[in-house]
């Protein structure tokens, strides 16, 4: 397959920086998926700053949009936690995940850009944050008794239950990371193949339409599963 045309890579090439990945630290930090990840982070930060720059009592424009997002998300999390204190603890993480993943997914639909989430390192990174955060929350809310979550109801069964629990958690990590990665990369590969095989005009349109839906659904699922796992870790025992 031909190398895709990426604007940020061309820009870095013009500046004389290594932009195509490689072995060194600078090469790794400036690989294409990292460049577009920085772009998505930048868009998140700029959106947040613009929305909170001059806040009014009666919101207009971008502030209105962001307030709707924050309020809706808060209600959605509270429906699952049934406790406003817990909601406020996990809210920043969940809100950032959704905004970042939505922006990162939709970047792939623009010509000259790619989805950073179509690289498994990015999705595994997001998943690692979510997993470590919810285990820490479990220890914070249940103390050392959080280990009882892994031991099952009967103490005599604990040596058998422990590996079972460990594998069920590994399964969660993989299913979170690989689902997002697989959906995004399959969309990109399908689009690329259709562009090459069937011509550039109308043939890739159905996949584009599907891609628009899938981008939103995947971001929503990632957010919802992070909430579900956090809530389960914070609850008391079985």
């Amino acid at each position, binding site marked *: 397959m031909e190398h895709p045309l990426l604007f940020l890579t061309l820009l870095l090439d013009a500046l004389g920086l290594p932009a195509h990945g490689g072995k060194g630290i600078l090469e790794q930090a400036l690989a294409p998926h990292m460049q577009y990840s920085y772009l998505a982070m930048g868009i998140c930060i700029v959106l947040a700053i613009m929305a909170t720059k001059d806040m009014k009592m009666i919101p207009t424009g971008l502030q209105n949009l962001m307030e709707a997002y924050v309020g809706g998300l808060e209600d959605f999390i509270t429906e699952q936690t049934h406790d406003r204190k817990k909601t406020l603890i996990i809210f920043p993480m969940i809100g950032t995940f959704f905004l970042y993943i939505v922006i990162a997914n939709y970047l792939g639909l623009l010509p000259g850009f790619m989805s950073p989430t179509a690289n498994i390192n990015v999705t595994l990174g997001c998943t690692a944050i979510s997993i470590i955060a919810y285990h820490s929350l479990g220890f914070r809310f249940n103390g050392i008794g959080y280990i009882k979550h892994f031991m099952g109801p009967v103490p005599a069964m604990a040596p058998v239950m422990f590996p079972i629990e460990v594998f*069920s958690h*590994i399964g969660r990590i*993989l299913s979170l990371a*690989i*689902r997002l990665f697989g959906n995004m990369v399959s969309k990109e590969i399908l689009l690329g193949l259709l562009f090459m095989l069937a011509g550039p005009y109308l043939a890739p349109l159905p996949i584009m339409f599907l891609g628009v839906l899938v981008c939103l659904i995947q971001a929503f699922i990632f957010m919802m599963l992070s909430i579900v796992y956090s809530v389960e870790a914070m609850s008391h025992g079985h």
Partner: protein
Amino acid sequence: MNYNSVAENMPGLKEELGEQFKNFSKASTIALSIVFSIFAGVLAGYYLDTKVFHEKTYPYLTILFFIFGLAGGIKNFFILSKRFQDEDIDKDKKK
């Protein structure tokens, strides 16, 4: 005819679509978590057999860890399906 007029003509459409999205996501979540926990179990068992014990215990640890992974997957299935069912019951109560 724009989106707003369609939504006004069919009052339940937006909620219905959102519900469909959520159900789809829940179903795919449950299925994938089962598959990947079995996969993780088999891989861990195979690694222990070949790399750590140098094929002295060859088929047995793989089989044992496959069963652990399977049980973990089934546990994920029960936990997730119960949680999603509870959510649905809560929603019905609100209505």
